C-alpha cells in the first residue's frame, strides 16, 4: 500500500493532497497543467522536500515530518518514476539500461523474458538514440520493473506518442502492474489517458484534490462545477423548474421547484406526483425550466435565475432531438457546425449560454433552431457545489465519490 499525505510549498500555492493506493491498484491524478500533480509524485519519490508529509510504502515510512522524523533518500525508496522523457542513459546500451538497477543481471533470464514481453528483445545491443519514442518508453518501463520498484509513478509518460502506441503502452502497464501487484500512480492532463489507465481517478486543481472516485463516476457525477469544467463539461445552463410553460429554451429540471429549492427538500411531501417528477426523469415533461429572462420576479439581472442552479452539459453526453425521458431537453439557435472526428460538433445558444455538443450525424436545425437532450446533467448550486443530478434514480445532493476527497 502506498499512502501519502503531503503539503509542498510551490511558488504560487500550496500543494496539499492525500493518496492511498493499494497493491495492484492504479490511481490517476488528473488536472490541468500546473495543478501540482508532478509535485505530488516528486514528493513521493523524495525529489522535493515537503513542508509536511507522511509517506509510507509497504509499511516502510519514507517521509515523516512528524516525530519520529524520517526522510529516506531517493536511492533507498524503491520508487520507480517514469516521465515523459524516458530518461534512458544515452551512453549505455539498451541491455545496460535495463540492467541498471541493483541486482539486475545483464544476461539473466529475467531480463530476456521481460524484453520479449516488452517487444524489445531485438534491440538489446542498440543504443537509446537509435530507438523510437515508443521503444524508449518500453525500455524505461522494463528498467523500472527489473529494478523491483515497490511503487510505479508515471508522470505523463506517453505525451507526444501517437494514440495507438499510447493505448498499447497503457494496456501493457496495466497488465504488468496487475501481475506485479505494485501500486501505481499516473499523472495525466488528458482525461482519456487517465480513464484508460486507472481504476481510481483523482481530480486535482491548484494543489487540492477536488474529487476522487471511479473514473466513470467522477465524470458522470462531478462534485463541483470546477470538477465538471476539468472533466470536459463545456456548457452550463442556468435552470429552474416552472409549471408554467416557458417561451423557449430549457425543459425539465427534475429535483427543482420554481424557487430553485432542491427536490429532496421540497418535493418529498408533495404527494401530487411532484416527487415522481423530482426523482424520475423518465416521466413526461412536467414543466418548463425557464431561461433567466422568463423566470419571473425571481430572475436576477443578467439572466441568471434566482436559484443560481446550473446544469452542466458535457458535449459527449448529448443526443439529438427531444428525449425528455433521458435528461434535459435544450433548444436554441444553431450557431456553429463543424466536423469533429467521425461525427460533428455543434454549438447552440440556450438562454444566452453557448452549448457545445458532439453528435454522430450532421445536425438538421428546424428554422435555425436545434433541439438536443443532455443526458443526466449534473446540477450545481450557486457556490459551484453539486446539488443533484437529473438521473433516473433521483440521486440528489452532494455527489462526492466514495473515494478520498479533500474539498
Amino acid at each position, binding site marked *: 500500500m502506498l499512502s501519502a499525505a503531503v503539503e509542498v510549498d510551490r511558488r504560487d500555492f500550496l500543494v496539499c493532497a492525500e493518496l492511498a493506493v493499494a497493491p495492484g491498484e492504479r490511481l490517476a491524478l488528473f488536472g490541468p497543467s500546473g495543478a501540482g500533480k508532478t509535485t505530488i509524485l516528486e514528493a513521493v519519490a523524495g525529489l522535493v522536500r515537503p513542508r509536511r508529509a507522511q509517506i509510507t510504502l509497504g509499511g516502510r515510512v519514507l517521509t515523516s515530518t512528524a516525530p519520529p522524523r524520517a526522510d529516506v533518500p*531517493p536511492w533507498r525508496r524503491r520508487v*520507480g*518514476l517514469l516521465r515523459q522523457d524516458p530518461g534512458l*542513459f544515452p551512453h549505455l546500451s539498451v541491455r545496460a539500461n535495463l540492467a541498471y538497477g*541493483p541486482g539486475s543481471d545483464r544476461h539473466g533470464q529475467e531480463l530476456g523474458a521481460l524484453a520479449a514481453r516488452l517487444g524489445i528483445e531485438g534491440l538489446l545491443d542498440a543504443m537509446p538514440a537509435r530507438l*523510437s519514442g515508443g521503444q524508449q518508453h518500453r525500455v524505461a518501463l522494463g528498467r523500472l520493473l527489473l*529494478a523491483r520498484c515497490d511503487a510505479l509513478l508515471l508522470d505523463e509518460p506517453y505525451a507526444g506518442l501517437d494514440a495507438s*502506441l499510447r493505448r498499447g503502452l497503457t*494496456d501493457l502497464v496495466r497488465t504488468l502492474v496487475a501481475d506485479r501487484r505494485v501500486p501505481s500512480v499516473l499523472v495525466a492532463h488528458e482525461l482519456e489517458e487517465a480513464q484508460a489507465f486507472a481504476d481510481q481517478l483523482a481530480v486535482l486543481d491548484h494543489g487540492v484534490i477536488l474529487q476522487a472516485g471511479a473514473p466513470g463516476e467522477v465524470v458522470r457525477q462531478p462534485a463541483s462545477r470546477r470538477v465538471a469544467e476539468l472533466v470536459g463539461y463545456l456548457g452550463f445552463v442556468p435552470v429552474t423548474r416552472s409549471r408554467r410553460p416557458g417561451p423557449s429554451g430549457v425543459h425539465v429540471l427534475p429535483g427543482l421547484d420554481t424557487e430553485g429549492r432542491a427536490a429532496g427538500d421540497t418535493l418529498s411531501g408533495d404527494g401530487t406526483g411532484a416527487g415522481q417528477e423530482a426523482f424520475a426523469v423518465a416521466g413526461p415533461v412536467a414543466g418548463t425550466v425557464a431561461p433567466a429572462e422568463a423566470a419571473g420576479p425571481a430572475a436576477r439581472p443578467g439572466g441568471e435565475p434566482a436559484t443560481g442552479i446550473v446544469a452542466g452539459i458535457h458535449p459527449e453526453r448529448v443526443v439529438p432531438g427531444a428525449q425528455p425521458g433521458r435528461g434535459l431537453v435544450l433548444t436554441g439557435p444553431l450557431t456553429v457546425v463543424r466536423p469533429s472526428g467521425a461525427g460533428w460538433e455543434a454549438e447552440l445558444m440556450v438562454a444566452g449560454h453557448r452549448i457545445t455538443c458532439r453528435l454522430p450525424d450532421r445536425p438538421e436545425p428546424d428554422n435555425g433552431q436545434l433541439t438536443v437532450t443532455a443526458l443526466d446533467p449534473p446540477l450545481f448550486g450557486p457556490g459551484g457545489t453539486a446539488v443533484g443530478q437529473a438521473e433516473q434514480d433521483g440521486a440528489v445532493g452532494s455527489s462526492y465519490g466514495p473515494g478520498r476527497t479533500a474539498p
Partner: protein
Amino acid sequence: MSSAASNVAAAGSGVRGDSGPGRRPPASPGGPPHSARVVRSASGAISVAAALVIWLALLGPVITLLMHISPGAARTALTSPGALEPLVVSVESGAVTLAVLLVLGTPLAWLLARGRLPFPRVWEAGLLLVLLLPPLVIGLLLVFMVGPFTPVGHGLEALHLSASNTFLALVIAQVYESAPYYVLGAQAAIGSVDPRLEQQAALLGDRPRRVLRRVTLPLAGPGLAMALAVAWARAMGAFGAVIIVAYHPYGLPLQIWTTLQETGLDSALPFAVVLLVVALPLPLAAYVWSARAQRRRRG
C-alpha cells in the same frame, strides 16, 4: 506474450518502420529543376572552396613553421647543452597546473552548472573578466597581488616560498591564464548532463557518488576532457603573465623568446616545434575521444 504486449510490439514495429533516426526522406521523384540543381551545386562548390581557403589560412602558421625549419638547425638547437630543460619545466608546471585546475576548478564548474551558487551571473562574469584580461596585465597584477612585498608574499616567505621567479610563480601564472578556459568549459560539459538522468539513477538505487561515477562523469567526460585539453594548451603556451612573474625558470615559451632575442629566428623555430609537439597531443586525444563517444552514443 500477453495480448497487450503483442499490441505494443505490433505498434512498435510500425514505428520502427516509419521514421527511425538518421533515415533520410525519399527523394522527390520530380526534384528541383536542373538549373536549380546546377546553381545549388555551383554555390556548394564555392562554399567548399571558400571554407578551404579559410582553413588553410588558419593553418598557415603551422604550415609555414614546417616549411621553414631545417633538420640541421633543429638538431643543433635541440642537442645543445640544457636545451631540453625548458621542456621539462613546461611539462612539470603544466601537469601541476592541470592538477590545480582539476581539484579547484571542477567543483566550481559543478556548482555553476547545477545553479547551486547565488547570483550565478556574477560568478560567470568574474570568470569572463579573467578570460578577457590581457595576459600581460594579469602578470602585472599578479606582482601586486602575490609579489614579495605584498601580504601574500610575506605569508609565502614565512613558508620559505616565493611567487616571484620561481616554479610556484610559473604555476600561478599558468593557472591564471588557463583557469577560465577550464572552468567555463567544464561548466558547459557538466551542464549538458540532464539532472533528470541523475535523478533517475538515484531512483534506481544509486547513491550520489555512484551516480557521479556511472552517469555524470561518463556523460560529461568528453566535454571535461576537451576543457582540460584546452587548459593544458593554454598553460603550455602561457607567456604574457609568465614573463612578468616567472622569467625564471624558463618554460618553452620563454625559451623561444630568449633564443629569438639572442640567436635569431632560425634557432627559435625548433623550440616552437617542440612546444607544438608537447602541447597538441592532449587536445587531439581529447578531441578523438570526444568524437568517438558521440559516435558511440548515436549507435
